[in-house]
Structure formats: C-alpha cells, structure tokens
C-alpha cells in the first residue's frame, strides 16, 4: 500500500493522512537516482540545452537543435514505454511498471502558458536551473529560489484557480 502511494503521486492526490509518518531517508536506496541525475546533468550541459541562447533560438525558430533534442527524446521514450508494456517488463525489484495516466484539467493550458512565459525569460526549464547552478552561474540560485517561491504561491492559491 505504501509503495503504491508513492507511484500514484499526482497533483490531485491529497496525501494529508500520511503526515507524521517518520519515514527514514535512506542514502543507499536513493544513490542510484543521484547517479542517474549526474549523467543526466552532464547531458544537459554538453547538449547545451541549458543555454539561454538555445531557448531563444528555439522560440525564434532560428535553430532545429532544441526541437531535435526534445523530438528524439520523445521518440526514444515512446519506443521504450511501448516495449516495457509489450513485454511486461518489471522493475529491478520485480514490481510491475506503472505509469499513471495524466488527467486533463485547465491548469495544463493556463499553467502551461505561464510556464512558457517564464521559460522564455529565464531560458531554462526546471532541470536546467539545477545544471546551471552546478555549472557555476551562481545567480541562478536566485531564479531557483523564485521558482520554489512560485510553487509555494501556487499551493497557496490552488483551490481558487480554475482547474
């Protein structure tokens, strides 16, 4: 049950009853995600998708680069998920692999537009913010803090916003 809750994580999911649970954070169980993150961060930097200039080129239609990266990633991801489903692949610990379907709500339009506004200004989506800080652009720490603040403000007004 506890394992299932983790998988079913979504914005709509109210997990309030679990407060007070003293789950321990295990470094050894999570270190594999740190390692995947490292390779992923290196890829972000070396493919230059963390570059403000690449994002400007994308939105100005002056370069194919970002479309190529995202398009290829989607094709590779889609083939992988297709194969996982077709062959019923399991996780390393033997669980069935599950991907929660996304539910449509108006947030995907309003929130999507708002994120797009921010993406064009900062030239970075959430992943690149972390990679940029690691690359030594220390002022991006402020961008990250404002992104976290933006998330908090969203949480504050969530029930009043159209969904």
């Amino acid at each position, binding site marked *: 049950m506890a394992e299932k809750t983790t998988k079913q994580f979504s914005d709509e999911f109210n997990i309030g009853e679990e407060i007070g649970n003293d789950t321990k954070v295990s470094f050894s169980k999570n270190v594999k995600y740190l390692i995947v993150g490292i390779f992923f961060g290196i890829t972000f930097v070396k493919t230059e998708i963390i570059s403000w200039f690449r994002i400007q080129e994308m939105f*100005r239609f002056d370069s194919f680069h970002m479309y190529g990266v995202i398009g290829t990633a*989607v094709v590779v991801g889609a083939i992988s998920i297709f194969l996982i489903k077709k062959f019923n692949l399991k996780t*390393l610990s033997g669980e069935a692999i599950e991907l929660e379907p996304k539910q449509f709500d108006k947030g995907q339009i309003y929130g999507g537009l708002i994120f797009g506004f921010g993406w064009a200004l900062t030239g970075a989506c959430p992943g690149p913010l972390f990679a940029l800080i690691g690359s030594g652009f220390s002022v991006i720490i402020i961008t990250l803090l404002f992104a976290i603040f933006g998330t908090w403000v*969203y949480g504050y007004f969530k029930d009043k916003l159209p969904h």
Partner: protein
Amino acid sequence: MIELIKQPWTWYAGGILIGLTVPLLLILGNKPFGISSSFRHICAACLPSHLNYFNYNWKKEVWNLFFVAGILLGGVIATVFLKDPHVIVIADNTKKFLEQHNVTDFANILPTDVFNWDELFSLRGFILICVGGFLVGFGTRYAGGCTSGHAITGLSNLQLPSLVATISFMVGGIIVTWFVLPFILNL
C-alpha cells in the same frame, strides 16, 4: 575520446540519452521522469504550512531530490572536467536580434551581461532572473509538470493532456519571446 566528449553533443545524442532516462527511472524503481515536482517537495520539506498541497510525506518522494542534486553535480562535472574550450555557436538571426537589444556577451552558454549579481538589482535583470523564475515554478506546478514530466514522459506515454500542456508551453514561450522580450531587453 575525451576530446570528442568535450565537444558540444549533437541533438540526436542528447535526445537519445534524455529519452533513455524515462525507461531507466522506471526500471530502477518505478519512478516517473519529472523534475518540477522537486520544487513541491522542497516546499513541503522546508516550508511547513497548513496548505494541503504541501501536506504529504515528502520523504517518500525523496528520490526526486537525489535526482535533482545529481543534475546539479552533473553540471559541476561537465563544467570542470568536460568543458568545451570554444565559444558557443549561436544562430546568426538570433544573435543579430540580441545584439540589437543590448545583449553584448556571447561567450558563455548564457549572456552573463544579463544574468549576474549586479543586474539582479536592475529592472531588466529582476524580470529575467526573478520574475522568470517565479513564473517557471508557478506555471509548472499549475500545469502539473514541465518539459520532462509533460513534453517527454507524457508525450512518450501518448497522453493527450501532456500534448495540450506542451503546446501551451510553446505558445507561452513564443508570445513572450516575440512580443515582450524585445521591450524587457531594452530596459
């Protein structure tokens, strides 16, 4: 070999590696590839509040924080050990446009004449660094995901809501790039 890695990677190499993150995280532990949820976990962990949106056991989602910490470390490694000695190549049209709008530094992956600590206190810098960040955090959580959760994982899983979200990201970005950014850059 190391020389090859130091060059900027092609779009298809990057695309394949990023795409493979989706099955890798699923096989390692049934984790859906997504990054912006880390903002929510950081809020839940650091800013305890009565808000329902942040009242959940974030420790169960801690893998996501390890993942983003890894991305930051990856940035360190790529920059310290694998740095491309050449100046970034920028499309001519984009460069011309930016030059006409008071952007002068094209040596780094971002214009350091705009993104630096002193600029933070100018109107232009404040909008790009702070307001932009706020909109990224607010918008991604409102949309229920960002480029990774919607555009890559969602589209890979053929989710229509993710297509709607991805189109919205692009429309929002195009509107600001073409109609708002020219004014902000001239501030």
